[in-house]
C-alpha cells in the first residue's frame, strides 16, 4: 500500500510540472486558438537562466540574502526574463501572422521553438548542465513507509501555491474574467470593451513566467537540464491541457495532475517502457467518450 | 376560413407526427404535426426561439428527434443522416448562409449534385468514360442552376467574394442542384434589401410554377409570408399554435399576441446578422 501512495505522490510532483506548463498552453490556446509550440522552450530557457543565476551568482547572493534569497532571486530573474522573451516572441513571431489565420501561426510557433532551442544550444553549449546539488538540504523523510524528500515537499507546495495563485487571478479578478470572456468568445468580448491586446500581452507574460519557474523547479528536482528537454515536457503538457479540456484553466491543472499520476501508475503496474503508450491510449479513450476533454465545454454548434 | 389551395393530386410530400426534440431540460419542439402538400409553399413562422429552426434541423437529419416520426413521400426518414436526407430529395439552406467560402460559385453549386453521382476513387483517378460523363452532367446541372439564379457571370469568383444577396441565391442554387422534391429554406430573405426580397419572391413563385417542387420555409418578413405562402404554420414555445391560409393567420389574435408584437425586436437582430 505504501508503494502505491509513494507512486501517487511522485505522480503528483511530476504532474504539477505538467500542470504548470499546460497552463501556458491552455491560456494561449483559449485566447488565440494557437498551439504555442515554443512554450516548452520558454520552460527550458527559464531553467537555464535560473541555472546561470544559481551557479554564477549563488556565492554573491547567498552571502547577502541567504540560500532562500538566492533561490528567490533566481525564480524572479527567470520569470521576469521569460515574461520579456514571451512578449518579444509574441511581437516578432506571432503578431504578424495572426491576421492570416491560425495555421500559419502553427508554423511560426514551430519556427520559434527551433530558434529558441538552438539559441540555448549555442549559448550554453550542447552538454547537459547540472544544477548545484547542495542548494536544498538533502533531507529524506520516511512517513509511514513512504519515502519523501524535503525538496519534493517544497516543490509540491510551491507548485500548488502557483496554481492557486493563477486560479485566483483567472477566476476571481476582473482581469481574469476578461481572459475567460476572451477565451469564450473573442468577438463578443471585444465588443464588450475588453482590450484583447492587453489580454494577449498578459497571457504571454504570465505563461512564460510560470514556465520559467517550473523550469527552475525541474532543475532543482532532477538537478540536470538539457536544451532539448522542452520538447518532451511540452508534448506532455500539451497532452495534459487537451485531456483537461483545452482553453480551460482548471482543466489544464487537473489534466496535468492526472497525466502525471497516470504516468507513474502506468510505469509501476504495467511497464516503465510502455507507460507513455498507456498514457496516450487513456487520452484517446477519454476523447472518444468526452470529445472535448474532462472539463471542456461541449460546444453545440448553432446551425 | 379560406380553403387550402393544394396540388391537383393532393399528394402529401412531407409529414411529421408528434415530432419532439429535447435539449437538456428544454423541450425545443413539442409534438409538432406538419403536412406539406405537393406543389405548395408552406411557411413556418413564429417568434425567435419558437423552435422553427429546430424543426428544420430535425427534419433534415442534423438532430435526432426524441419522439415522433418524419415521413417523406410516405416513407419513414426519421433518424437518417443529413447526407441521406438530401439524396431522398429534401435539400435545405441555412439561416446564417453556409457556403464553401474559399471555393468558386460553380464548385459550390456542384456540391448539390454530389448525391446524384457515384464515381469512386479509382474511376476518378483513371478518368473512366463513366466518370467523365458524370462530371459533364454535374457541370451541366451546375450551369443550369447558376443561370437560373443569375449568377453564371460570377461562376469563377470565390463564394466569399460575391455580394450578400448573391450568396443567399447561391445557397439556394446549391440546394436546387440536388434536384430536390422538397426545398427547405431557413429565412431566405433575411439580410436582403427590399428589391432583393422582391426578386426572391418572384423567383420562388416561378420555381413552383415551372418545376415539380415543393417549398417549406421559415420566414420573418410578413410581406414574403403573406405574398407567396399557400399555407402558414405558426409556432410558439415549441408548439404549433395555429395554421391556415395567410389571410386567416394575419387576422388570428393568438398569432398577433405571440408573434407580431415582437416583430420590431426581431428586425433589430437582423441588422447584426446581415453584417457578415
Amino acid at each position, binding site marked *: 500500500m505504501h508503494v502505491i501512495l509513494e507512486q501517487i505522490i511522485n505522480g503528483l510532483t511530476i504532474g504539477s510540472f505538467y500542470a504548470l506548463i499546460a497552463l501556458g498552453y491552455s491560456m494561449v*490556446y483559449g485566447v488565440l486558438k494557437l*498551439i504555442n509550440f515554443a512554450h516548452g522552450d520558454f520552460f527550458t530557457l527559464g531553467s537555464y537562466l535560473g541555472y546561470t543565476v544559481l551557479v554564477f551568482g549563488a556565492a554573491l547572493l547567498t552571502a547577502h540574502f541567504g540560500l532562500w534569497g538566492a533561490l528567490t532571486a533566481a525564480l524572479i530573474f527567470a520569470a521576469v526574463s521569460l515574461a520579456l522573451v514571451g512578449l518579444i516572441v509574441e511581437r516578432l513571431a506571432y503578431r*504578424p*501572422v495572426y491576421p492570416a489565420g491560425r*495555421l*500559419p501561426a502553427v*508554423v*511560426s510557433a*514551430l*519556427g520559434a521553438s*527551433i*530558434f*529558441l532551442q*538552438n*539559441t540555448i544550444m549555442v549559448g550554453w553549449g550542447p552538454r547537459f548542465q547540472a544544477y548545484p546539488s547542495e542548494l536544498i538540504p538533502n533531507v529524506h523523510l520516511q512517513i509511514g513507509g513512504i519515502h519523501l524528500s524535503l525538496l519534493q515537499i517544497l516543490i509540491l507546495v510551491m507548485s500548488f501555491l502557483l496554481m492557486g495563485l493563477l486560479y485566483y487571478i483567472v477566476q476571481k479578478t476582473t482581469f481574469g474574467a476578461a481572459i475567460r470572456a476572451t477565451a469564450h468568445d473573442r468577438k463578443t468580448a471585444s465588443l464588450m470593451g475588453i482590450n484583447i491586446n492587453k489580454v494577449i500581452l498578459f497571457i504571454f507574460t504570465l505563461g512564460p513566467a510560470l514556465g520559467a519557474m517550473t523550469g527552475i523547479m525541474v532543475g532543482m528536482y532532477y538537478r540536470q537540464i538539457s536544451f532539448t528537454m522542452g*520538447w518532451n515536457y511540452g*508534448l506532455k503538457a500539451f*497532452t495534459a491541457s*487537451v485531456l483537461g479540456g*483545452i482553453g480551460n484553466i482548471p482543466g489544464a491543472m487537473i489534466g496535468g495532475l492526472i497525466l502525471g499520476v497516470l504516468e507513474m501508475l502506468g510505469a509501476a503496474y504495467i511497464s516503465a*517502457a510502455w507507460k507513455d*503508450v498507456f498514457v496516450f*491510449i487513456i487520452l*484517446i479513450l477519454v*476523447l472518444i467518450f468526452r470529445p472535448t*476533454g474532462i472539463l471542456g465545454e461541449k460546444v453545440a454548434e448553432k*446551425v | 376560413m379560406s380553403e387550402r389551395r393544394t396540388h391537383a393530386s393532393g399528394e402529401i410530400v412531407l409529414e411529421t407526427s408528434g415530432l419532439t426534440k429535447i435539449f437538456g431540460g428544454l423541450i425545443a419542439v413539442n409534438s409538432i404535426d406538419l403536412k406539406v402538400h405537393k406543389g405548395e409553399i408552406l411557411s413556418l413562422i413564429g417568434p425567435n426561439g419558437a423552435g422553427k429552426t429546430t424543426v428544420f434541423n430535425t427534419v*433534415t437529419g442534423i438532430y435526432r428527434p426524441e419522439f415522433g416520426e418524419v415521413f417523406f413521400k410516405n416513407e419513414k426518414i426519421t433518424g437518417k*443522416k*443529413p*447526407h441521406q436526407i*438530401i*439524396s431522398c430529395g429534401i435539400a*435545405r439552406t*441555412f439561416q446564417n448562409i*453556409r*457556403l*464553401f*467560402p*474559399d*471555393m468558386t460559385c460553380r*464548385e459550390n453549386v*456542384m*456540391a*448539390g449534385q*454530389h*448525391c*446524384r453521382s457515384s*464515381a*469512386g*476513387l479509382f474511376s*476518378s483517378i*483513371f478518368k473512366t468514360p463513366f*466518370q467523365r460523363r*458524370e*462530371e459533364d452532367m*454535374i457541370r451541366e446541372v451546375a*450551369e443550369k442552376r447558376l443561370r437560373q439564379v443569375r449568377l453564371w457571370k460570377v461562376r*469563377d469568383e470565390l463564394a466569399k467574394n460575391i455580394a450578400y444577396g448573391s450568396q443567399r441565391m447561391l445557397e439556394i442554387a446549391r440546394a436546387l442542384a*440536388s434536384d430536390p422534391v422538397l426545398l427547405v429554406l431557413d429565412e431566405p430573405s433575411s439580410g436582403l434589401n427590399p428589391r432583393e426580397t422582391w426578386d426572391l419572391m418572384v423567383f420562388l413563385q416561378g420555381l413552383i410554377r415551372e418545376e415539380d417542387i415543393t417549398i417549406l420555409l421559415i420566414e420573418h418578413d410578413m410581406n414574403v409570408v403573406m405574398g407567396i405562402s399557400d399555407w402558414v404554420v405558426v409556432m410558439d414555445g415549441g408548439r404549433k399554435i395555429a395554421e391556415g391560409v395567410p389571410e386567416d393567420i394575419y387576422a388570428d389574435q393568438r398569432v398577433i399576441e405571440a408573434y407580431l408584437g415582437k416583430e420590431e425586436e426581431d428586425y433589430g437582430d437582423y441588422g447584426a446578422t446581415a453584417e457578415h
Partner: protein
Amino acid sequence: MEQASFPGIAKIFSSPPLRITLITALFLIYPFLVSDYFIDIAFYFGIYALLGLSLNIVLGEVGLFDLGHAGFYAIGAYTTAILNTKFGVPILVLLPLSALAAALFAYVVFSPVIHLQGDYLLIVTLGMGEIVRLALINNPFGLTGGPNGVFGIDFPSLGAFLVVDSSLEYYFLIWLIVGLTILGLTRLQDSRIGRAWNYIREDETAANASGIDSRSYKLLAFVLGAALAGVAGNVYASKLMCVSPESFTFWESCLIFCIVLIGGMGSIPGVLIGAAFISLFPEIFRPFAMYRMLIFGSAMILMMMFRPGGVWPRKRGAVQYESLLGDTGRADV
C-alpha cells in the same frame, strides 16, 4: 519574396504542356549533371515530396490536423523491413503491401475517433504517432528490433533485369512514384471526391447537408494519406537498408506538417516547394554547422510573415479547371 514577381514566373509556366515538359526534362537531366551526393539530396526531396503530398490530402484537402503522420510512414517502413528481412518478401511486392498496412492501420485507429473536432483530432493523431514510435522502441514480439531497428533490407528488383541499387536508380524510382502520385492527385482534385474533401474543409455541416457523408470521406482521406506515406516508408527503408525509430519522431511529423503549410494548403506545386525547403535548406546551410537550425527556425517564421498562405497557394477559379496535364480544357463557355 515580393508579390509582383510571381505572375512573372507564372507566365513562363502558363502553358500547361510546356510547363510539364520543362519540369520533367529538368528532373530527367539533373541527375546526370551532378554527383551522387546531390542525387541523394534530390532523392530525399522526393521522399519528403511524397510525404507532403500524402499529408496534403488530410491537411490540405480536408483540413484535418494530423501531427502524427510519421506514424504511417513508420508503419510502411517497418512493414517493408520486417517482411523483407524475416520472410524474404521482395521489396517491390512490399510496396503495395506497405501501403496497405499503413492504410489498414489508419482505418482501424481513426474509425472510432474520426468525429473529433479540430485540435482534439490533432492530439489523437499526435498520440497515435507517439504510440507507434514507442511501440517500435519497445520491440513487441521481437519484431521491430527495438531502438536498434531492423537492418539488412534488400533493394528493389524485378528478377535480374531491373535492379534498383544505385543513387541514380533510387532517384528515378522515387520521382516516378511522386510523378504518378501527382498525376493521380491532380485528377482527384478535379473530381467529385476531391471537391467533397474541400467542401468538408470549408464547412462540414453544409457539406453534410449537401449530401456528403463527411465521416467516410474523412476516413478515406486518412486511409489514402496513410497509404502514400506507407509507400514513402517502403522506398526509404530499402534506400537506407535499415530502419530505426529515430527516423519517425514527432519532429518528423512536424516537418511534414510544415511542408504543407509552407507550400500552401491543398496546392500540389506548393507541396513540392515546401518539400524542397524542408529537405534542401539544412543541406544548403551545412557549412554553418551548429547555426544552421537557428537559421532554419527564423526562416520558417519569416516565411509565414511574408507569405502566410504559403509560397504557392492553390488557385481557384478558372485556372483550376485546366488540370496539370491540360486535358480537360473544356471548362469555360
